[in-house]
């Protein structure tokens, strides 16, 4: 793609250097003369933003590491010291925390761009896979970093995620203990998480270098998805792409700055300002926003699938949801790259996009939250007012005969005119039967929005009726309902369906739109392209 190098050293020094270490030539060929398709749109500027994010995270992170103390008793206080006493510590800390969110925001746009324009198809499969590796490393780094301030969410997030790995059969428990450095999240955990959090960004930088190398080998894809045919289809990277990237990146930095200076905590969770307390579970444990879709997939299974219990199913689905991205180049069978020319695939893509957003929404909600229900939760309470309470012992011949004996006693009491009966088992073959006879049967209906509120209503009725009432018979009715968990499951199914069924089948069946001639054939002559 890059073709032969056009670099010509101008001075004696650069000629000397070029013979020995052609680093200026490499830079020139990669970032100056590198031919860029001339039809790239703004979605192609996110690579530059991501490079900036990586640099910002590494630079601010190195400074933070000079002041941070990875110790369960001092980590929280050391972050506070950075915010209060370190010169411009508040700025650096905010940039690092907000920077993580910006990094993920940009990477998601970058990934959806690749998905829409088919940037993963031959010859860019490795480019895409390297990108997936970077994303996976980013997730790991983000998770590790979120643990370090040692707030409540840090601690409980780390606990939840490390425990997840414990769900894996055979090796799970060992991996979990190995990660935590013990049997719970504690001092060894924070030490190793800090060490790894410092290491991984440099691994990311290494894979980014490979990613850029692969990109420059295969050449950039473009919105038309039609390979660049000749030099006329391209412009030199500098100044054309550089200026456009710089402009777009500055807009991105403006958004970044608005968060850093005006709402630094808006993307975080209030609970992370409470120091970690292993004895107190927060009311809700949620990861940062950028991991919420995966968290929703993790919690989408509230039932066992054959031998796979619900927890393991969630873990497997979560890993598979990232794993499937690695297989994407071979799952999508369409010969057309850009979804511009795939009218049906485009609609499924739009749905996929909203499904991902909805998964994120689900991840942040209480999984039991009811979205729809056919009726209220309701209960009927029956009790007797003013009756005669009697008590008698039940003696069965043995434990095996208990059921027969007690039901016989109840039946006898009913025959004798008892309106209500209650059996309390006191031993293997003994118990007491309490009966109420005479009096007036009363009942009450209660209904409420949730099961918890219903219990409150029931308690309320019991209190109204008076503690003297010996017993209530309560019949509870739960309506058919649709919760966040059910919704997550539907969304998860679509997520996988999109990759495993829709893309492979659609690629074979769909009739793509015609690519306009102006795009399919180079129409500009060489002279015009060179201008």
């Amino acid at each position, binding site marked *: 793609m890059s073709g032969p190098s056009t670099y010509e050293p101008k001075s004696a020094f650069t000629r000397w250097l070029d013979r020995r270490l052609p680093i200026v030539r490499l830079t020139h060929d990669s970032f100056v003369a590198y031919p860029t398709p001339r039809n790239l749109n703004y979605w192609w500027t996110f690579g530059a933003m991501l490079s900036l994010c990586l640099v910002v995270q590494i630079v601010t992170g190195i400074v933070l590491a000079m002041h941070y103390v990875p110790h369960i008793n001092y980590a929280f206080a050391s972050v506070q010291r950075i915010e209060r006493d370190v010169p411009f510590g508040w700025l650096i800390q905010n940039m690092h925390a907000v920077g993580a969110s910006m990094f993920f925001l940009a990477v998601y746009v970058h990934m959806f761009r690749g998905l829409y324009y088919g940037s993963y198809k031959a010859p860019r499969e490795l480019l895409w896979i390297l990108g997936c590796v970077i994303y996976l490393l980013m997730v790991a780094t983000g998770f590790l970093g979120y643990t370090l301030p040692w707030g409540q969410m840090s601690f409980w997030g780390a606990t939840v995620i490390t425990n997840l790995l414990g769900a894996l059969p055979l090796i799970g428990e060992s991996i979990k203990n190995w990660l935590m450095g013990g049997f719970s999240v504690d001092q060894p955990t924070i030490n190793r998480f800090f060490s790894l959090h410092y290491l991984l960004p440099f691994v990311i930088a290494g894979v980014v270098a490979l990613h850029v190398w692969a990109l420059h080998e295969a050449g950039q894809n473009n919105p038309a998805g039609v390979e660049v045919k000749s030099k006329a289809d391209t412009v030199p990277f500098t100044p054309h792409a550089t200026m456009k990237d710089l402009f777009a990146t500055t807009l991105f930095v403006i958004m970044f700055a*608005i968060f850093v200076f005006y709402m630094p905590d808006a993307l975080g969770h209030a609970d992370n300002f409470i120091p970690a307390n292993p004895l107190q579970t927060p009311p809700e444990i949620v990861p940062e926003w950028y991991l919420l879709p995966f968290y929703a997939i993790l919690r989408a299974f509230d039932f066992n699938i054959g031998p796979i219990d619900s927890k393991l199913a969630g873990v497997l689905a979560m890993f598979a949801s990232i794993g499937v991205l690695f297989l994407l180049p071979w799952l999508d069978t369409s010969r057309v790259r850009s979804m511009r020319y795939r009218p049906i695939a485009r609609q499924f893509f739009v749905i996929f996009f909203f499904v991902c957003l909805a998964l994120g929404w689900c991840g942040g909600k209480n999984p039991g939250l009811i979205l729809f229900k056919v009726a209220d939760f309701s209960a009927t309470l029956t009790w007797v007012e003013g009756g005669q309470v009697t008590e008698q012992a039940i003696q069965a011949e043995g434990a095996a005969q208990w059921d027969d004996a007690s039901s016989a006693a109840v039946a006898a009491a009913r025959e004798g005119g008892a309106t209500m009966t209650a059996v309390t088992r006191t031993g293997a073959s003994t118990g007491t039967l309490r009966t109420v006879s005479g009096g007036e049967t009363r009942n009450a209906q209660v209904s409420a929005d949730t099961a918890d509120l219903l219990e409150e209503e029931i308690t309320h009725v019991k209190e109204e009726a008076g503690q003297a009432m010996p017993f209530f018979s309560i019949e509870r009715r739960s309506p058919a309902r649709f919760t966040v968990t059910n919704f997550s499951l539907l969304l998860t199914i679509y997520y996988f369906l999109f990759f495993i069924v829709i893309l492979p089948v659609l690629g074979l069946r769909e009739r793509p739109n015609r690519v306009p001639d102006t795009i399919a054939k180079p129409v500009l002559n060489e002279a015009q392209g060179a201008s």
Partner: protein
Amino acid sequence: MLRVLSAAAAVIVASFGIAFAASEAEHPENHPFSFESPVGSYDMAAVQRGFQVYQQVCSTCHSMDHLAYRHLGQEGGPFALYMVRSHETGEMEPHVGKPAHGGTFVDVTENPYVRAIASGVTIVDVDPNSGQLADRPGRISDRFRRPFPNEIAARASNGGAYPVDLSVITSARHGGADYIRSLLIGYDGTSEGTLYHNRYFPGGKIAMPPPLAEGAVPYADGTATTVEQYATDVATFLQWSADPHMEERKRMGFVVLAFLVVLSGLLYLAYKQVWRGESH
């Protein structure tokens, strides 16, 4: 197909609104604090009064471990001292709080107000001569005095409940300063065992007895000594203590954004210039 979807989405969104309606605690009352807007700053008189309320009321149970007395006199702090040239006499005169214009900041070590606050506190420390624990007057470098030596002692003195550290409390609670202010005025005067009814507290019952009473803390500046005023002042002080660099942050943000907007404008023009005449 997309139209059907968006209609379905609208229905889903509408029904979520209903699902959200149920909630345990009352939503905090929205108070128009001076620091809320993007250019808002702290009402330093309120921060000072709030500190006074903290010292005289809250600090009997609540620690603020991350704050030192010197923080009160740093730039952007409630007792920051500046030397200002007087218009009448032409002499340099001390001025608490940042003057409208001019003024040189006095280093906190030279700040008599902060020194007075610190030395008015008794700190338990290791005596340098005997090596035993002994009382000494506070220094500006000391952290705010802890009411209890540890959590066990705090719980033992408070019927098992632990009075939380207040250093970053407005960041640590949904609703921030509004929540703190609402909580302090949210008691209805009834209690149940050792718990007090408070309509803003999750669950409705809180272990902290109503801390503020009308007239309990005398104000020197003539501000009304009502519970509501105390609550507003304490909430302002706690917001400052959680976010002491807010004013500097917003000021710098304005400059940074102005620079970036101009830069992006220039870069846009440069980009257009470079691409002029290129078909794309």
